[in-house]
């Protein structure tokens, strides 16, 4: 990467920034899930690594969360944007050099940011834990360059129309800027109390709703038609999906604070909008599953489609949970319990991770013109990820229900801790399986870059997946 930072633009090979983002994202995924496994071990075995403030759960939790969101997920998104945006516009990336710099600053900035968090320098606000100067670096050093590259590539496209994926990409980078800027206002202006609480959850909600969810969905809109060769089932449903994300995902932030003294009308409004999150979900899932018509064999024998469709299917429980758990009737029971942790992992480690992994698998092979080093290892990765995640999700959901019962019936806290202990061990087992799968993935992609069979010109990776 370093040799291209000061190289002439024409000397930088096309797709370089996508490759660097792709590899970086996998490395951060390994780090993020490794930290997750470590943290889960601390919850399962309270005597594991004690005596050091740096390795206490309070220091490590947010490092895990931020490594995964801004390292794995967002860098995988950047990777997808760097190669899918130009591909859909029949053009090249607006500035490969800006992309390489973007990747460099992102990696360096995130390393500094996580070191700050690790050392205890934190805003203390969940999901927007970074201190204010890190927020500004992310905003202007990371998101603005990414947005410029995406927008300029869309503007300079050689097609008249803009495909659905690029609607989502372009609008998501714009919306992320707004979310980061407005959501972190409490840090710049020392807002406190209910305003701070609301903006904290406005940020957390919209990072999910206007960045992670739409970009992950946009990737699926590319992967499924590209690999199956089927046309996208419906351009019209794409409209419904896109606009319902904008309208219904941006408004329900107050449903994260249903027991707070926010105005009741705001909670009522947010709660209805919260259920209406099902509208984009239904549009997305139906459009993608109908696009698979006649090509379901890919779900079995193509690793990228296997990841993508699994992610698409996870959108169903994700949004059913998300839509209904925030209503007054259910929220009073599960609020503040492990149920929510399970739900957050269903969104980030389930739904979006599976879609991004497909993009990284497919993108790296396509750009490097190297066939996957080992399909068997890719399948190992898929199953470890799926089984590990499922163990995690089920165990945390059950633990959440136990905590909810304990909360409502005023069971002594220590009794609840003892009751949920087996599920904490299961959580660690599941999380560690995910981490192990990712180590294998990193090895597989590293070997793909070094020793993968060259893909002949005019062929695509999935076409030769089973050729020797």
């Amino acid at each position, binding site marked *: 990467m370093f040799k291209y930072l000061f190289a002439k633009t024409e000397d930088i090979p096309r797709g370089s920034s996508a490759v660097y983002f792709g590899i970086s994202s996998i490395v951060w995924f390994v780090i993020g899930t490794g930290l997750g496994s470590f943290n889960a071990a601390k919850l399962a075995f309270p005597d594991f690594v004690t005596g050091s403030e740096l390795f206490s759960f309070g220091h490590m939790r947010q490092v895990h969360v931020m490594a995964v969101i801004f390292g794995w997920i967002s860098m995988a998104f950047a990777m997808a944007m760097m190669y899918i945006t130009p591909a859909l516009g029949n053009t090249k990336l607006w500035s490969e050099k800006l992309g390489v710099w973007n990747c460099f600053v992102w990696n360096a900035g995130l390393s500094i940011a996580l070191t700050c968090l690790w050392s205890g320098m934190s805003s203390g606000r969940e999901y927007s834990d970074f201190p204010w100067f890190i927020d500004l670096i992310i905003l202007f050093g990371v998101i603005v360059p990414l947005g410029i590259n995406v927008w300029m590539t869309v503007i300079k496209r050689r097609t008249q129309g803009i495909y659905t994926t690029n609607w989502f990409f372009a609008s998501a980078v714009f919306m992320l800027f707004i979310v980061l800027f407005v959501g972190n206002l409490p840090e710049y202006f020392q807002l406190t109390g209910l305003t701070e609480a609301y903006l904290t959850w406005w940020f957390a909600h919209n990072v999910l709703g206007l960045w992670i969810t739409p970009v992950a969905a946009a990737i699926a809109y590319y992967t499924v038609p590209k690999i199956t060769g089927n046309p996208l089932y419906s*351009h*019209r449903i794409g409209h419904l999906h896109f606009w319902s994300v904008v309208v219904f995902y941006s408004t329900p932030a107050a449903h994260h604070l249903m027991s707070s003294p926010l105005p009741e009308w705001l909670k009522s409004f947010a709660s209805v909008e919260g259920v209406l999150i099902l509208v984009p979900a239904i549009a997305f899932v139906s459009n993608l599953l109908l696009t698979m018509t006649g090509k379901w064999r890919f779900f079995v024998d193509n690793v990228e489609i296997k990841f993508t469709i699994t992610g698409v299917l996870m959108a169903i429980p994700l949004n059913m949970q998300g839509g209904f758990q925030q209503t007054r009737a259910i929220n009073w029971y599960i609020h503040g319990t492990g149920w929510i942790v399970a739900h957050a992992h269903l969104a980030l480690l389930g739904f979006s991770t599976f879609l991004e992994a497909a993009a990284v698998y497919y993108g790296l092979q396509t750009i490097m013109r190297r066939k996957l080093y080992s399909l068997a290892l890719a399948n190992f990765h898929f199953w470890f990820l799926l089984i590990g995640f499922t163990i995690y999700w089920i165990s945390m959901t059950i633990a959440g229900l136990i905590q909810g019962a304990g909360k409502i019936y005023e069971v002594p806290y220590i009794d609840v801790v003892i009751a949920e202990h087996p599920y904490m061990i299961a959580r660690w087992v599941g999380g560690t399986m995910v981490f192990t799968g990712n180590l294998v993935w990193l090895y597989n992609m590293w070997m793909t870059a070094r020793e993968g069979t060259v893909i002949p010109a005019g062929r695509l990776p999935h076409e030769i997946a089973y050729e020797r």
Partner: protein
Amino acid sequence: MAWKFDNPLFSLSDEEQNDKARKLWEAEGLGGITEDNNRLPRPVVWLLGLTIISAFLMTFPLWGQRPQAAIYAEYVAAMDSPRVQAAQAAGGDQAAMAEIVRIVREGQSKYEALQVRHPLSMNELRLVKDQIIELQNSRVDLEEYTIVGYKVLLANFEGNWKADGTRERKQPWWDKGYTIDIFYVTYFCLAVMIAVKRLPNYRWQPVHHGH
């Protein structure tokens, strides 16, 4: 960008505009990806309708609301009656509680539905009894107080200003949040309808030559 309004459910674009869209649709390959023009399947339309209705029905404060102190005032009044005392002596707490419920039902309580939704045991009733009596003596509106665990507290809800300068503490089943939602959802449906009706009608499907 010519508009046509004679058959809005078929198309909002004139034939020339639709023709241009159809030609572009068939000619253009977006990185090797093509799109069809299918409508939303009918069962999915019904599912979306159901979702919108559920969104309102599921979120009314009626569900998940804490019990108001007012619904137990009649229970407290009946606690020391001879019938309940007799039931207590004969069958203990459970029988006494059943007798209280029977007495209150005979009196046609206006809170019957809420009492059924929020049953409580004799022990729980004992915990809130004195607090409810104290509030009755201070002549406050018991509907503004909720039962939180073993405490009777002024409700978290802050509604309209009352004539005495205090805030209404009763949570209505409907508030302006729902009214905003109705307009919001309506505008959304209209906007999306307009967006998709500007496209060529769904009965036309593109032929993807060589993409």
